[in-house]
C-alpha cells in the first residue's frame, strides 16, 4: 500500500512540471501583455511601457522567467496578481469554496440521479424506459454547456421568473463568510430567508454543471450493471430467494460500482473545466470565473498559479479515487 502510494506520488512530480511549463508558456503565447491591457484606452508611451515591463520582470528572457517562477513555487510562493496585487494563493483560497460548493452540489446531483437512472435502464433493458433514459443521457452528454445554461436562464429566470440569473445570494442578505460555502454560511447567519435565497441561486448552475457528468455516470452505470447482471453470482443470489431489490441493489450494484467510481473520479476534471463556463454564464464568483477574467487581463501569475492548483486538485482526487477502489473491491485490498 505504501509502495503504491509512493509510486503514485512520484508520478506527480513530472506531471506538475509539465503543467507548470504549459501554463507558463501558453498564456505568454496570447497576443498583448498585461501592461498594455492595464493602461486601457489611455495609450502608454513606449518608454513608460518598457519601464513597467522591466519593473514587473517581464522583459527578461522566457527561460529565466520560468526558472525564477519554479524557484518561487518551491518556496511556496505562487506569485502576486498584477491586477489585484494580492497573492495568487490568497485569492484562490477565498474563491475556491464557491467553486467547491457548486462542484460538490453538481457531482452529488449527478451521482444521485445518474446511478439510479443507469440501474433502471439496465434492469429494463431494451424497453422504452431504457431507450428514453439513454436517449436523454446522449442529449445531455452532447449538449454545449454555455448554450444549455443560456436556455435554462431564458426559460426559468426570464420566462417563468422562478430562479435568479446570476450571483450566489440576493443582495438583501449580507454576512461575513465563515466557511465560504454560501449554503452553510446563510444558515449560520441566522437571517430569515437567507438559506432559501442561496439555494435558489444554486439550482440552475448546479443543473448546468451536473448535466455532462450525469449523462456519463448514467451510461457507465448501465453498461456496468448489464455486465454484472449476467454474472453467475447474480443467479446465485436469486437462487437464494432474495428479493429483486436486494439482488440488484446489493449484489449487482456493489460490483457494478467498481468501474463507475473510476468514471466519477474522471468527472472531477470535467467538472472543473465545466465550472469555467458555468461560472462565467452565471457570474458565479469562483475560480472558473477568476481564471477567465485573468486570461482576458493577461494576469500571468493568476493563470499559471490557478492552473497549477486546479491540476493539483484533479491529481489529488484521482489518487483518492484509486484508494477508494480498495474499499469497494476486496480483490484489490487483499
Amino acid at each position, binding site marked *: 500500500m505504501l509502495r503504491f502510494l509512493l509510486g503514485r506520488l512520484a508520478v506527480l512530480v513530472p506531471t506538475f512540471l509539465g503543467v507548470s511549463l504549459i501554463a507558463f508558456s501558453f498564456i505568454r503565447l496570447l497576443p498583448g501583455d498585461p501592461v498594455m491591457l492595464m493602461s486601457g484606452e489611455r495609450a502608454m508611451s513606449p518608454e513608460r511601457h518598457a519601464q513597467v515591463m522591466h519593473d514587473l520582470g517581464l522583459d527578461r528572457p522566457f527561460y529565466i522567467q520560468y526558472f525564477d517562477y519554479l524557484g518561487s513555487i518551491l518556496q511556496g510562493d505562487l506569485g502576486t496578481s498584477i491586477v489585484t496585487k494580492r497573492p495568487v494563493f490568497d485569492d484562490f483560497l477565498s474563491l475556491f469554496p464557491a467553486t467547491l460548493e457548486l462542484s460538490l452540489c453538481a457531482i452529488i446531483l449527478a451521482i444521485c440521479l445518474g446511478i439510479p437512472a443507469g440501474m433502471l435502464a439496465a434492469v429494463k433493458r431494451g424497453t422504452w424506459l431504457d431507450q428514453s433514459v439513454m436517449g436523454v443521457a446522449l442529449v445531455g452528454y452532447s449538449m454545449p454547456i454555455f448554450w444549455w445554461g443560456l436556455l435554462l436562464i431564458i426559460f426559468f429566470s426570464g420566462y417563468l421568473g422562478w430562479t435568479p440569473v446570476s450571483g450566489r445570494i440576493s443582495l438583501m442578505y449580507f454576512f461575513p463568510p465563515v466557511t465560504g460555502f454560501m449554503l452553510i454560511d446563510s444558515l449560520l447567519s441566522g437571517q430569515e430567508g437567507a438559506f432559501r435565497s442561496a439555494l435558489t441561486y444554486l439550482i440552475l448552475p448546479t443543473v448546468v454543471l451536473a448535466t455532462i457528468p450525469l449523462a456519463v455516470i448514467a451510461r457507465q452505470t448501465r453498461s456496468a450493471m448489464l455486465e454484472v447482471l449476467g454474472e453467475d*453470482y447474480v443467479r446465485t443470489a436469486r437462487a437464494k430467494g432474495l428479493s429483486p431489490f436486494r439482488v440488484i441493489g446489493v449484489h449487482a450494484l456493489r460490483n457494478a460500482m467498481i468501474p463507475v467510481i473510476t468514471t466519477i473520479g474522471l468527472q472531477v476534471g470535467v467538472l472543473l473545466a465545466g465550472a469555467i463556463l458555468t461560472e462565467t454564464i452565471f457570474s458565479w464568483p469562483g475560480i472558473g470565473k477568476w481564471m477567465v477574467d485573468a486570461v482576458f487581463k493577461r494576469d500571468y501569475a493568476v493563470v499559471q498559479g490557478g492552473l497549477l492548483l486546479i491540476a493539483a486538485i484533479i491529481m489529488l482526487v484521482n489518487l483518492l479515487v484509486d484508494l477508494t477502489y480498495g474499499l469497494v473491491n*476486496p480483490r484489490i485490498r487483499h
Partner: protein
Amino acid sequence: MSLLQIENLVVEFQTASGPFRAVDGVSLKVDPGEVLAIVGESGSGKSVAMLAAMGLLPWTAKVTADRLEFDGRDMLAMSDRDRRRVVGKEIAMIFQEPIASLNPCFTVGFQIEEVLRIHTGLDRRARRIRALELFEQVGIPAAEERLGHYPHQMSGGQCQRVMIACALACNPKLLIADEPTTALDVTIQKQILDLLVELQAEHGMGLIMITHDMGVVAETADRVIVQYKGRKIEEADVLTLFENPKNAYTRALLSALPENAVGGRLPTISELLSDEQIFAGAPR
C-alpha cells in the same frame, strides 16, 4: 407423494430467428430421499429445465407445463413473493463454477448468513453459530477464520463447499446440483461428490444431479433421465440403465469411452446416429 413433479415442461426463448425450444415436453418426478441424475450433452436443456422449475430464468423465457408441483404446491400458480419463500429455503441449488457463483465483493460468511437472515428468524449470534456449524459439516477447516474470507482467497473446491453450505443452510427438502464438479480438479471432484452423497443421506433430502459425466451418475444416482435436444429419451434406475440401455443414444453415450477412440479421437454421436433414430421410442 413426490417431492417435485413436472409434467410436459416446455421452455421457449424468443430469439431474433424466432422462438427456440430449449426444453420440449420433459416430465419427471423426484421422491424425498431419492437421487435423480439428469444426463445429457451441453445444450440438451438439463439446466434450463431445473432453472425453470425454480423460476430463475430471465423474462425472455416462456415456461409452460401441465404440472409443476413442489411438495404438493403449484409452483406455476405461485406469486413471485411466495416462490421466493420456497426457493433458497426448501429447494436449493448449487452451480458449475463455484468461484464465479459467489459474489466477489462479500465475505463468504456474509453470503451464508444472508440466506439465514431472509429465511429464518435467527438473530445475528445464532446465524454465526449456524454458519460455523455448516462450515464444519461441509468440511472447511478453521471455520471461524474462513467466514471472514472473500471467495478469491479460497480454492475452487473450497468455494464449492461454501456453495453447498449456503444451499444446506435452511435444511432444504430438495437440492439441485448443476454440474457441481465439472470445474474442479479430479481429486476434488471425488471429495465433493462424496460430500454431496453423504449430506444427502444424512439429511434425507431429494437430490437432482445434473451432469454429463456417466462416472458421476454411476457413483451417485438411484434413477437416471437421459436428455437430448430438450427431450427426455430414456428413464431408468441406474443399474438397468448401465446394464441394459434401451435407447441408441444412451448406448452411444455409455460407449463413449477413451479406449473406443479411433485415431486419438472419439466419434461424435451425431456422426453415428440421426435424430430420428434417437427420438424413436423416447418416452414422452
